């Protein structure tokens, strides 16, 4: 078998299957190292406020552990709960020999030029693990921050929930307030072992000229649960991702919730794919997409490979003005006795709904805001309390800016 290095080298010019091609070499691959911070609250207020917009608490209040990477430097890491680990992937690879067995196992290194670049020019990333039976009381938080103009940031994350354990994770990706350009490549490999559970909330808060190429895959074993919530409400130049979950053990479950908002000039090509390859596995993919002038391609793909699986895909899109929303739901059944369905709807806000709220006393603007807010409502998603609160905050801050 070819070595990973070789596969990566062969793929370094391989364009991705989806999304516009990015010239990686145009982004700077070197930058200064930042000093390690014992106390994150010593960060400047502006950076802290950007982090808050991405769900990251510099005070670490209400968090079980924290990892913060700025450009190519790990500036803080630490965990306050027994049984959990959150450290840089670089340290983790040195510390745990066995970690190699998880590296590039869920995401193929030669998937495209972005995975290849992440392997050949890695700039850390994080490693999170819960030991068997351990349950995170508060969420762990990880922040990937771009502070230098035009920087390329290639990170590789591995997240493992051992048998019967539970992880709640918030990942916030953002840029310094004055930074408008950059390229973020993020590889994330999740492993949900037997009876384990991961709730993963990723909040992207980028800037007008930032390009983003996450490559994410999850393997869920018997009785495991993977909940993924993805929120992208701020402008971004080009974002393309199509995370996939493989449900390989009986009774495994995956649910993806995405809330996407495309501002003028933003192009988002985002989907979620679940491959149900064991009996009694379940999947749900829900997307809420809003365009105020940007473009969204909302994909979804469910693959039923064995009898007795159940999966549902739902995509709703709201075009506030101009813009484009293209919903592409796909169902692929490979055997009989499967239950897969989808619903998709794209449209503008119904005038009748606005006037209904006006008849109760709201102005047209207030009614529109209430409907948009309701559209993005996360109550439907059944999130653990603290995560729901983070999403709520992100939605509110977006609302204030755009409505």
């Amino acid at each position, binding site marked *: 078998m070819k070595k990973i290095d070789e596969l990566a080298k062969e793929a370094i010019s391989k364009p991705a299957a989806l999304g516009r091609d990015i010239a990686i070499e145009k982004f700077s691959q070197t930058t200064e190292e930042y000093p390690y911070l014992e106390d994150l609250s010593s960060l400047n207020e502006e950076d802290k406020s950007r982090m808050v917009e991405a769900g990251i608490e510099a005070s670490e209040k209400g968090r079980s552990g924290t990892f913060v990477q700025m450009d190519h430097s790990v500036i803080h890491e630490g965990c306050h709960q027994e049984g959990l680990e959150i450290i840089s992937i670089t340290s983790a690879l040195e510390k745990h020999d066995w970690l190699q067995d998880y590296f590039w196992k869920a995401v193929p290194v030669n998937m495209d030029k972005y995975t290849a670049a992440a392997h050949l020019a890695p700039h850390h990333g994080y490693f999170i693990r819960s030991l068997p039976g351990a349950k995170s009381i508060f969420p762990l938080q990880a922040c990937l921050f771009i502070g230098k103009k035009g920087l390329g940031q290639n990170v590789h994350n591995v997240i493992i929930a051992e048998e019967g354990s539970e992880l709640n994770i918030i990942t916030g990706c953002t840029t310094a307030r004055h930074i408008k350009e950059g390229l973020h490549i993020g590889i994330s490999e999740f492993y949900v072992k037997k009876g384990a559970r991961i709730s993963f909330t990723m909040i992207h808060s980028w800037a007008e000229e930032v390009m983003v190429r996450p490559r994410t895959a999850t393997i869920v074993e018997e009785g495991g649960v993977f909940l993924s919530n993805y929120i992208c409400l701020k402008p971004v130049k080009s974002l393309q991702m199509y995370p996939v979950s493989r449900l390989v053990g009986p009774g495994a479950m995956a649910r993806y919730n995405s809330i996407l908002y495309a501002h003028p000039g933003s192009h988002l090509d985002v989907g979620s794919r679940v491959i149900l390859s064991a009996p009694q596995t379940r999947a749900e993919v829900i997307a809420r997409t809003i365009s105020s002038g940007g473009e969204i391609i909302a994909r979804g793909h469910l693959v039923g490979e064995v009898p007795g699986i159940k999966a549902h895909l739902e995509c709703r899109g709201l075009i506030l003005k101009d813009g484009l929303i293209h919903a592409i739901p796909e169902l692929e059944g490979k055997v009989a006795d499967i239950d897969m369905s989808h619903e998709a709807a794209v449209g503008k806000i119904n005038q*009748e709904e606005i006037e209904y709220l006006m*008849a109760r006393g*709201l102005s047209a603007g207030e009614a529109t805001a*209430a409907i948009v807010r*309701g559209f993005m409502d996360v109550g439907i998603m059944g999130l653990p309390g603290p995560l729901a609160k983070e999403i709520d905050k992100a939605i509110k801050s977006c609302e204030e800016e755009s409505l």
Partner: protein
Amino acid sequence: MLIIRDLYVEVSGKEILKGVNLEINEGETLILFGANGSGKTSLLLTVMGFSNYKITQGEIVYKGRVINDLPINKRARMGIGISLQRPPVVRGVKTRQMVDIASEGSADPEDLAARLHLTDFLDRDINLGFSGGEMKRSELLQLIAQSPSLVLLDEPESGVDLENMDLVGEVINKLLEKHLHRQRKRSGLIITHTGYILNYLEADRGCVLLNGRIGCLGNPREILEDIRQRGYKECVVCNR
């Protein structure tokens, strides 16, 4: 309270109301009869200000002010409240929120919902999966929260099951301050198709909307009886 003068209204270019004249005094309840498609709902929605209903002639005067050009929410805040026949689903907006909006935060949603047997509906998306009767009760819930001076009800009894009919009648009576007599301030304009609501409500006057105009002003029970016996055909001939 409400004076409608020579009102002509178009919906999508089609003339629906053709010279409606109507007056409702303070404390008075008027029942509006009329065959399907006669324009009853259009009249109510025009008074509320819904944008599909274009006034081409005439005026609507509410509390002494011409409101033809006032936006819906201004009319609501001036005290006009409506219960729609088929209210829309608004995903993500909860019944509780509607109560807060209507009452500007002054009502206790739990308390009001309990009165209308809607406690379990407070945290549901408004009108999503509601039965016909549940929608009607939810509309009334919002109206009580709003506490309007002029109550517009579009077939408040349709779809309501027998078990809840007493309740709906009681709530409407309360909305219209039927328990007060001389001090009664609230007025009502109520559309009914079946007239069933009259078993639960004392109405002062009735009228029939026919071919876009009002006719046959009089005692609502007598009008209903007439319609029952002779149908709306008679109204055409009678032309009172």
